């Protein structure tokens, strides 16, 4: 698989943390991305803040692509599996009230036990899934 990249991971993580804190300080909102995306698309009366955050995310991706070294990103699985994954992530985050950014970055930052339970659950489920697909089913690592 990929090489261990602790330096870029910590830099990126700090940026994510700072962005989350600034978002709370400036707009009063917790930056849970799945909720923001649902807000931007299905929207409350005032969805402009959510929409602009999502546009910012996209621009962040463009900016990173523009200035940063080209990462060797590749799809994890075939396209239809990515689509199935998307469905599950959409339904799961709706049901469980968020995911990595909501429970991970915001919730753990608030020292929320609820979020710790959520993070442990989804990391465990993800690890089991990858174990099944990578080592037992169709894919070789």
């Amino acid at each position, binding site marked *: 698989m990929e090489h261990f990249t602790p330096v870029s991971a910590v830099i990126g993580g700090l940026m994510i943390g700072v962005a989350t804190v600034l978002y709370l300080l400036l707009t009063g909102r917790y930056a849970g991305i799945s909720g923001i995306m649902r807000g931007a698309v299905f929207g409350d009366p005032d969805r402009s803040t959510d929409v602009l955050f999502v546009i910012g995310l996209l621009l962040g991706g463009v900016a990173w692509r523009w200035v940063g070294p080209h990462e060797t990103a590749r799809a994890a699985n075939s396209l239809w599996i990515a689509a199935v994954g998307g469905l*599950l992530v959409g339904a*799961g985050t709706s049901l469980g009230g968020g995911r990595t950014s909501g429970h991970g970055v915001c919730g753990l930052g608030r020292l929320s036990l609820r979020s710790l339970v959520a993070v442990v659950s989804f990391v465990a489920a993800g690890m089991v899934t990858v174990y099944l697909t990578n080592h037992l089913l169709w894919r070789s690592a």
Partner: protein
Amino acid sequence: MILRGVSALGCGLLFGAGLGISQMSNPAKVIGFLDVAGEWDPSLLFVLVSAVAVTAIAFRFVPRLPRPLFDRAFERAAPENINARLIAGASLFGIGWGLSGYCPGPGVVALARFAPDATLFVGAFLVGSWLYRFAKNQQLVVRSETRSVSLGEVAVCDRVGDIEQKGQATSAPF
């Protein structure tokens, strides 16, 4: 209002660039983190820990301010309910994460490199969210209809409770 919009745009940009730099938007990297039985890559643990290090310190102070700079009040965090719903939702999310290698934010960031799998993922994420909303709204319809028909009929109300529970169960495994 304008300042709030600019703030949202800027925070999104910083967040997105952070996801890009840390390679959260690279599915192979995510799978490498989840693949504990293979060549485990702990990089994403470093992403999470360093992000939480920042929020854990700042969240002690920021919500105590009288109000955010560009809005009236701070959003209240979700109540501390630990229940089956939370764990079921998180587990579904985890399975989807493990299959696709994406979560919503990184999926959007990966759109910037025109990744077909990210496009499908984000589309399917919205469909999954919409299906959940749809199922939930259906339940609301059932409940309000039945209530208006049978005020005080406990038996019917009990059955509505069953319908709601079944509705939730069936809304889960898409």
